[in-house]
């Protein structure tokens, strides 16, 4: 056998390859850090010093590795460095964003901010975003009322009834398409629909709800579909075997089993559309007053209010915008947290 001689010609192969000391990244890190600090002392700007320091780290470690460990080790170290750098670069703006919103927003938010609207009955009355909070909640509630039944039932059709037929395939495909609809297009749709029916000057909260439900339905369908697929067929068959009709099997057995996941999906869908701005600009309009009627007149939501304050651009407006952004983020985060808790509570119990 030809490999025999090959193998026998190989003598002792050392397993101890020359390697950098384990602390090498730390050592180079400290060197890069002091290099950056030195640049800082020499009067280079903070940003440039950071960039140059990071570059130094990224280049020195692979270079050292190349000299001692060879090409493969150096490549591995370079890529590891680059990957972690990408991570660090991305974290900076994200942290900055959260920090801005929290620090700027929290100082503006108080009881008055939450309980007054922009509409002043007296000249010295304080302003708040109560009207926008109400608007946000009502319009989103409207969207949920439209999307949840349609989305859940459509998913039931896709999984329980239409498995594999052409119509189901077409719907699945269109749901995919819908997830990619730009929100402004959804707004244009609602705008076109309602102005064609009710005339060009029409604005109302329900129009916004319709636009948002267009964005929300695909998310609900997706989440429900996934959950229904997780329900084992054994359960359905066990129920059929007891003589239960299909629809009762779905209502009594399948849906309760999948309930936690579906609720989580719905909550996430709500948190996704609650921050939408563009469609509401077009169809729900903006107002300073608190409007409790979804079906009549303009309704402001928090995102639209933030946008409006951004357009004005002066200092008080900016403060209000940050405050509203803070409230919005808190709502979104709470919804996400609720979704997680629901998922935990309803997840199938073990043991």
């Amino acid at each position, binding site marked *: 056998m030809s490999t025999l001689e090959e193998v026998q010609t190989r003598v002792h192969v050392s397993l101890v390859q020359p390697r950098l000391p384990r602390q090498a990244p730390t050592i180079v890190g400290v060197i890069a850090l002091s290099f950056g600090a030195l640049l800082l002392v020499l009067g280079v700007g903070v940003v440039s010093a950071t960039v140059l320091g990071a570059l130094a780290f990224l280049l020195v470690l692979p270079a050292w590795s190349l000299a001692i460990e060879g090409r493969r*080790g150096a*490549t591995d170290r370079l*890529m590891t460095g680059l*990957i*972690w750098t*990408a991570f660090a670069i*991305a974290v900076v703006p*994200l942290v*900055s*964003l959260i920090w*801005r919103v929290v620090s700027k927003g929290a100082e503006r938010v108080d009881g008055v901010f939450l309980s007054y609207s922009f509409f002043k009955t007296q000249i010295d009355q304080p302003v708040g975003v109560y009207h926008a909070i109400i608007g946000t909640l009502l319009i989103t509630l409207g969207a949920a009322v439209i999307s949840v*039944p*349609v989305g*859940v*039932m*459509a998913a039931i*059709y896709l999984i329980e*009834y*239409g*498995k594999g*037929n052409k119509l189901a395939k*077409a*719907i699945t495909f*269109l*749901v995919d*398409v*819908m*997830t*990619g*609809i730009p*929100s*402004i*297009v959804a707004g*244009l*749709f609602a*705008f076109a629909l309602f102005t*064609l029916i009710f005339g*060009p000057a029409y604005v109302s909260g329900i129009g916004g709800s319709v636009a948002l439900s*267009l964005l929300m339905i695909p998310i609900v*369908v997706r989440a429900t579909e996934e959950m229904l697929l997780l329900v084992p067929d054994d359960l359905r068959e066990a129920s059929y075997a007891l003589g239960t*009709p*299909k*629809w009762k099997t*779905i209502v009594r057995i399948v849906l309760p089993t999948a309930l936690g996941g579906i609720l989580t999906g719905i909550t*996430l869908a709500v948190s*996704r559309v*609650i*921050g*939408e*701005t*563009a469609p509401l*600009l*077009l169809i729900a309009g903006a107002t300073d007053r608190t409007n409790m009627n979804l079906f009549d007149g303009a309704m402001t939501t928090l995102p639209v209010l933030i946008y409006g304050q*951004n357009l004005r651009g002066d200092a008080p407006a*900016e403060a209000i*915008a*940050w405050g509203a952004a803070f409230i919005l*983020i808190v709502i*979104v*985060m709470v919804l996400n947290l609720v979704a997680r808790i629901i998922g935990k509570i309803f997840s199938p119990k073990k043991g």
Partner: protein
Amino acid sequence: MPPPNDEVTAVTAPTAETEDVSANWASARAGVGDRIFAGTALAAGLTILAALAGVFIFLAVKGASGFTKPTEVYGPHAESFLGYVVPLLVGTFTASVIALIIAVPLSFGIALVISHYAPRWIAAPVAYVIDLLAAVPSVVYGLWGAFFLAKQLVPLHVWLHETLGPIPLVGELFGEPNPAGRSVLTAGIVLAIMILPIITAITREVFSRTPRLHEEAALALGATRWEMVRMTVFPYARSGMVSAVMLGLGRALGETMAVTMVLSVGFDLSWNIIATSSPTSIAANIALKYKERSADLLNVLVATGLVLFLMTFLVNFLARWIVGRSERRMAR
């Protein structure tokens, strides 16, 4: 419809909605319940079809006349629909491409950190935070971009103009900078930060689905970690990575608020990505102009919306197609 098994199903399930109700043990009464329920489910499915058809039809009805309005409607900067929409398309794509160039490598880096590089106690919370950031409303990103980031980027604008400006060709990109930092570049950076969580979430998912068996096969052959990633993770995740990028692009193309709030708008077509005024994106243009509520201009705006819709449709369709194709290939 499959041939019914016996008389009962033939009687209780005569319509297409109930084609699956073929259980021959169903009593006639239960059959009614089944038909109603199945009918409702089908109706919900059809609603989705109708809604999407509705989007297209209403946009087409409202927007059709927008393609061929008298010249003055498109003014003052354009004479025809083409002249109106092309700068907007350029604006849309410039911002999106900048966003992709920045976001894609960063997203892949973060995804790798989460899926393969970081120990679990770092990876899990980071993944959670990234998911949360995907839920931050776009208007908040826009606010942060307009009131904070733009100012911070002014030195970068000046530096880019002074350092890279004089270089031929490349310098074209870095002409006279916007003094407030409200340029396409800034808008692109904000967009990049917005789509970063989306691309990261998808690629992280496909990276971590790489079969452990293949990773171990690579390591057992004596691969370093990066070689293992290159040999097993990337080939396995390639289609997922492509579709993640496409979905990110789709999101960037259709994103309204970040561009609307950050960019200082103009109509000068130039290569300068740090210019004082640049063409805005289609979505942002709609958000900026809808208030004028002149019927003619509205038609034009809806028409541009239709263009945007078809464009994002195409991008998303391509993304799905790529994923579907590779799934079929893997299944074979």
